[in-house]
């Protein structure tokens, strides 16, 4: 038997690892920007709704950086090998989606659509399962981003009471339940999206508890 077969294979794997390293470095950058953006966006929890706009305005530049970061990943990826390396950046892109979705909610009290994601991040959400012909954001990544919004919403409900905005929890509750109804249309399989989806009910519960506290004390009608 010729050991050369194995030597060639190893060389193949070695030459691939430099590509992996580059993707990994670019992904780390994206994570970093996302964390920074998240920190800035978190300030929205500490201010009344009227000041949300200032918070979201302050992260506009960050989104441009996130776009550049994703571009740096995308330039290493060809359509056919997209899914070979997809796991490497998927989590980071989920974070980026979550940030867009939270920012859009803060600004307009609505769900960011796939088009919004493209507007902010510069890449299309592949919502139709079609063959990948360019770098895309997968539907799962977008949906993961939406699950993260529930988390933020439950926090926001609590924190708006702290800043003396007792009407806002009601608005949040309404939106969260509408969004949850949408999510319930999905036939999820036993994967990470399903597990996170299962945790949404706790966020909903928390929002309802805030409602209850306010109502039982006669603070809202």
């Amino acid at each position, binding site marked *: 038997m010729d050991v050369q077969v*194995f030597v060639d294979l*190893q060389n193949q794997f070695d030459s691939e690892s430099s590509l992996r390293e580059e993707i990994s470095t670019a992904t780390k950058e994206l994570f970093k920007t996302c964390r920074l953006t998240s920190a800035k966006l978190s300030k929205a929890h500490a201010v009344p709704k009227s000041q949300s706009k200032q918070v979201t305005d302050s992260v506009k530049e960050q989104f441009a950086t996130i776009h550049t970061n994703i571009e740096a990943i995308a330039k290493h990826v060809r359509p056919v090998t997209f899914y070979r390396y997809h796991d490497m950046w998927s989590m980071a892109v989920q974070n980026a989606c979550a940030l867009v979705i939270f920012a859009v909610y803060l600004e307009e009290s609505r769900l960011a659509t796939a088009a919004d994601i493209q507007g902010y991040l510069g890449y299309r959400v592949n*919502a139709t399962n079609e063959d990948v012909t360019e770098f895309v954001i997968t539907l799962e990544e977008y949906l993961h981003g939406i699950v993260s919004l529930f988390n933020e919403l439950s926090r926001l409900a609590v924190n708006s009471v702290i800043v003396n905005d007792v009407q806002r929890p009601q608005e949040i509750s309404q939106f969260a339940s509408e969004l949850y109804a949408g999510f319930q249309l999905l036939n999820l399989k036993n994967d990470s999206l399903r597990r996170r989806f299962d945790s949404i009910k706790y966020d909903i519960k928390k929002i309802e508890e805030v409602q209850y506290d306010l109502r039982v004390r006669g603070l809202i009608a």
Partner: protein
Amino acid sequence: MSETKRAILTAFTQYRDTLDAHYDQRERVIKCSRDITALSKKIVFSLLRITQDSPERVFADATNKQKQVLELFRKMSVELQGSNGYKYNRQATPGLQEYIEAIGLWTFLRDNTLITKQQVLDTLSVEDENGEVKPLLMVTDEDYILGVSDLPGEVNRYCINSIGKGDRDAVERCLTFLRDLKEGISFVMCGGRVRDLDKKIPTLDSSLEKIEKAYYSMSIRDEEMAKVNPSAVVAAAAAAAAEA
């Protein structure tokens, strides 16, 4: 119904359809892959009958089954076009590995060599509508190395059967093959790039150990026989020659 609620429901209905289509496709790949695994195992069993049957008959039977597997691959390849090749690789790879193991054993029995990735691709190639011969689907380096590293178990079975028949040549061939394979796989493993490869090493080691032990007892027995009863050895050799 409020406007926002309507918008959300419309969007999520579309997402549901997309996800359903994706899950269905993944399911189809899993099923095909499982069928390929089952049929590949049958090829392996057919091939292992080589110690009891004539090689021609055994290989004819294997050829027959290989044609059936090819049909399954044709079915599976529909789901693995373009970017879907890697998207569903995790689902497709078990069947593919089992298949590589089966034709790897075949190649070993026929040519006494390790099957190459190109040979694997050749067996999976069919003529398309333009008359071009192309592989039905992509075989990644990981698929190949993982499939090949499953070979020791089967080579081991063949070897034990051969010992039963006193076929010293076959045992020798198995031993050399496995030793080389171990060397090669360990070499690739040092790179540490291929997931799950390290799980295959214990089987390889135990197969090798079994063969070495069996070969050892066989040698001792033969030596002893030659010492105690030289005429029996001559008679056995004559009988073997007559049979051949």
